[in-house]
């Protein structure tokens, strides 16, 4: 497709009071690309992701989704923009008082104004994609962590987002459940979803990432293919980080 990036972060800054968490982030994620973000704790990875749907308000810079600056516009535009950006959290954040099916239909019905039949059909389709169609009537508390995270992915996908953001989607999971979530993400990538993933699953990055970005101290320190970044890191900071985690 076109060269225009689906997600473009330009000169992004974020301060919390006096502390400067993001200094000057520039990042482009092309259509259908999977960009994988690594970096030490506190380097600002989550903050960057959260700026991409304005769960955090950027202090400066611009974020473009499919060519539109999401930092401009009214509250109404903001809610519409958020529909285009799916987000998956470390802690799943399913709604515990709603069934799996209702978790997935809620935003479809209230934000997208889909009617009930359409929303449920879409929810079942997404549940099928993540291999959980048989759990539609279950409560979130009855599911394993891996299943909950796959439902959370289905909930985001049901809104037909243009970009999916993942913030450490497998960090809260027991090791034996990680694979099922990574498989769903891999399938998603193969189907052409644009994805920005913060994770420590280096094996997944080698297998599925188009590019790897190493962040430290609120800036992008190094960027390249998985072979480049993992195989021959150019900067001392990346080398030190990678030797610690692998």
């Amino acid at each position, binding site marked *: 497709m076109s060269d225009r990036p689906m997600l473009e972060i330009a000169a992004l800054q974020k301060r919390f009071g006096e502390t400067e968490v993001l200094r000057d982030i520039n990042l482009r994620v092309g259509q259908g690309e999977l960009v994988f973000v690594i970096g030490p704790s506190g380097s600002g990875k989550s903050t960057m992701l959260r700026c991409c749907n304005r769960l955090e308000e950027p202090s400066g810079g611009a974020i473009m989704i499919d060519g539109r600056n999401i930092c401009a516009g009214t*509250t109404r535009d903001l809610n519409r923009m958020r529909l285009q950006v799916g987000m998956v959290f470390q802690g799943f*954040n399913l709604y515990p008082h709603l069934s799996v099916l209702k978790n997935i239909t*809620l*935003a479809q019905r209230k934000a997208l104004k889909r009617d009930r039949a359409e929303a449920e059909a879409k929810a079942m389709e997404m549940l099928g994609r993540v291999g959980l169609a048989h759990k539609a009537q279950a409560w979130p508390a009855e599911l394993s962590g891996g299943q909950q995270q796959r439902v959370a992915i289905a909930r985001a996908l049901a809104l037909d987002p243009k970009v999916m953001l993942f913030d450490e989607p497998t960090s809260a999971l027991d090791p034996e459940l990680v694979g099922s979530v990574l498989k769903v993400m891999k399938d998603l990538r193969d189907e052409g979803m644009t994805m920005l993933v913060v994770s420590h699953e280096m094996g997944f990055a080698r297998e599925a990432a188009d590019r790897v970005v190493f962040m430290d101290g609120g800036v992008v320190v190094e960027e390249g293919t998985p072979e480049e970044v993992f195989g021959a890191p150019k900067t001392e900071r990346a080398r030190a980080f990678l030797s610690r985690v692998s």
Partner: protein
Amino acid sequence: MDLFLDQFFNLDVMARALPFLLQGLWMTAKICAAVILLGLVGGFFLALGCLSPRRWLRWPAVVVTDFFRALPPLVLLIFVYSGLPFAGIQVSPFAAVVIAFFLNNSSYYGEVYRAGIESIPRGQWEAARSTGLTQAQTIGYVILPQAVRNVLPDLLSNTIEVVKLTSLASVVSLGELLYSANMARSLTYNASPIMLAALIYLVLLWPLVRLVSRFQRGLAA
């Protein structure tokens, strides 16, 4: 002993007083309905105010909540009924009771709601907002249902307090249950109507009190 039964549990007097007391009970029910409904709504908005990031909203909400929780409800009632006329504002006994207890009770419900809303993890807000739900939709469909479930015993306790509170309305001669019982006592020169009123309160509230205890044990388990 006979004298005691005759004075406090005189079935004949009770039977004669009963229709009168039932009228009073009806008035009590009307006050409760008004105060509970208004209080649940007012308390909800007070809680939202207290939790607002906007200082000009939060600050007045906190002051109002604290003020009406600190002020004894009887003082408030007498002020509304007998004090406001000095400012040219005259309200009926019923209106005075509803206004005073609404203000008192909104503050208590408000604190309960606030605790409930604060018990919901931030991730729930973030998940909802990230899927394009508005703030109001997030509160209505995601936060409030969970918050209310978490504080159901406290909401119920507070509601029991409201029912008991209505007996104060007798001081402004509003014909609720206690006032009717007291009237019947002075007409019959017999304390049995008071005992009957007490019995009615107990029969109504005991099951609710039990329910609260059950809930609390359920939550602890």
